[in-house]
């Protein structure tokens, strides 16, 4: 048997097509999806476009959580809080300081990355739920600060008139223009994550989830990788926040509360933890499904939660797992690797 130089996760599409070695099904899907999403809003109206953009923004936050939870196995209950930090940082920097969005985006990522590093220390204790507990506290503390420090954050009244960025002088104020901008940014972030997951870093992250003790004895700097996984995951939340603020053009503390962090967790697991495309499916369930369920009136939340629960009962690997199962059945493969 010859040793394929690549990871076993390379999908069959890549094996059949004569493509450069590093291209795999996931990347192709991402490219195709980006192209579709670029054109999708035509005829959807501003509202439809807005929902699509919101879906992508939430996907970015969920992608980050998927890295921490799905790959590295670190349970974080503060993803929404990190998103809040990013959103407020961007909102303040662009509307109060007058910095351009790109710099604010980078700073939001940096701040959340740094906070993630500090907060990650309790995670270094071997038992994983300590991180969950600490992030639970952190999440609520951040929410309190956002609410109480009115001089900075606008407190309960929030911050409004958050400007949208421009692109080389091109104004992105319109729903469609901004949507396309979101598509590009999300695509880039997804590709970076895709690359990371399939690099040796990704393998090391998985090792943290599977057996941190063995990993440490193999020279894997578990402390560094744990902090990295958590900080990068948090930075993605920061990036998501930096997109969220100009998308909604108004922020207040409520979308960054603990229950929203739970909601993001639900999305990760519903989409399929540890699958690269899982977050998009999860966020689709979390953001777009409720819109489709509007006909059900106030019952839609119950329906949504019930769907997630049934999904988990049917397949704990979430939608991605379910799709993979179906695909394998179609192609007659026995066992799929992640």
């Amino acid at each position, binding site marked *: 048997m010859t040793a394929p130089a690549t990871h076993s996760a390379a999908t069959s599409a890549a094996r059949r097509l004569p493509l450069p070695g590093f291209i795999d099904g996931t990347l192709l899907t991402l490219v195709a999806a980006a192209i579709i999403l670029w054109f999708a809003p035509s005829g959807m109206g501003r509202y439809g476009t807005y929902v699509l953009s919101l879906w992508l923004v939430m996907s970015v936050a969920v992608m980050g959580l998927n890295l921490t939870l799905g790959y590295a196995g670190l349970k974080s209950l503060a993803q929404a809080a990190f998103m809040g930090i990013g959103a407020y940082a961007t909102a303040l920097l662009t509307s109060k300081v007058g910095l351009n969005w790109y710099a604010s985006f980078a700073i939001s990522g940096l701040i959340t990355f740094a906070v993630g590093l500090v907060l990650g220390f309790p995670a270094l204790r071997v038992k994983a739920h*300590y991180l969950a507990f600490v992030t639970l506290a952190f999440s609520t503390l951040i929410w309190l600060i956002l609410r109480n420090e009115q001089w900075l954050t606008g407190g309960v009244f929030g911050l409004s008139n958050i400007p949208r960025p421009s692109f080389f002088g091109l104004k992105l104020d319109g729903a469609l223009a901004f949507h396309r901008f979101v598509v590009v940014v999300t695509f880039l972030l997804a590709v970076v994550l895709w690359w990371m997951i399939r690099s040796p870093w990704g393998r090391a992250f998985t090792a943290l989830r599977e057996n941190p003790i063995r990993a440490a004895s193999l020279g894997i700097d578990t402390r560094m990788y744990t902090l990295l996984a958590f900080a990068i995951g948090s930075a993605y939340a920061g990036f998501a926040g930096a997109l969220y603020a100009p998308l909604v053009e108004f922020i207040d503390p409520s979308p960054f509360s*603990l229950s929203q962090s739970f909601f993001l967790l639900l999305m990760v*697991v519903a989409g399929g933890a540890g699958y690269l495309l899982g977050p998009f499916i999860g966020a689709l369930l979390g953001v777009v499904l409720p819109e489709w369920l509007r006909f059900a009136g106030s*019952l839609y939340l*119950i329906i949504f939660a019930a769907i997630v629960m049934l999904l988990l009962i049917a397949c704990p690997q979430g939608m991605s797992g379910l799709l993979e199962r179906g695909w394998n059945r179609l192609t007659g493969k026995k066992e799929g690797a992640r």
Partner: protein
Amino acid sequence: MAEFLAYLIAGIATGAIYALAAIGFTLVWQTSQTINFAQGEFVMLPAVLVLLAIKLFGAPVWLGALIGIAAFILIFGVGFKLAVVDPMIRHGVLPLAIATMALSIIMKEGAKDGFSAEAQKFPSFVPTETISVFGAAISLQHVAIIAVAFAVIGLLQWFVGGTRLGRQMQATAQNPTVARILGIPVERMVLLTFVINAALAVVASVLISPIYLAKFSNGEVIGLFAFIAAIVGGFNQVRGALVGGLIVGIVDSMAAAYISTSYRLAVPLVLLVIVILVKPEGLMGRKEERRV
């Protein structure tokens, strides 16, 4: 001094409520190694079901109580185990914990849409008089809650750790495959866990709701504080709930008194972080197992 005492007693009274709600966390942890994120809703819902039964059947309070409680134990003890836990548990506890998050949404929204978005009075089975302890006021309801919390926790601590049945439940949680090999009726143990948990939630609900009123969103507040209490006290011991609950109650009360009220909520959380850094298994918790 009298002032301090008043805060202390108020804190203990509140703390007992948190303790009562937190037992569920520690019990479920010890007997199935999962976190039930719907625990707050478990405490919220029985009261709502009782009121619903009274409203639907026009039953007298005691009958309504019986119907509501039975329905709750059936749905969220037996039903939860059969419909959610059974298919999911073999995939590890993470999907299960996440499923309880979804469950909490269903319970909360269900209570709102199926019953009422408004808070409702809930009849008290304990006289509502207030007595004075060293000049500080405490209601008989709180006294009852303190007594019940102590009794239930003592009883459970004994049951889980001191009886063979309790140890079989623990064994099932710690290593279901081996439990099966030894002939422990694993299914029955899991069922027992969830029924006991549901029954406890009912007790907590019936005692707490006359004070906190019955409202669909109560689970959030109660759940959060109970969770903090369980962590502070120690997740892997039932008695952790008691110690954690009382400490969190007192700290919360003192925070309201002597620290900025808008940051009151932060104080128990800071306490939680300190406990995790200093004694991660919680004040009363058992040390983690050997890993290498």
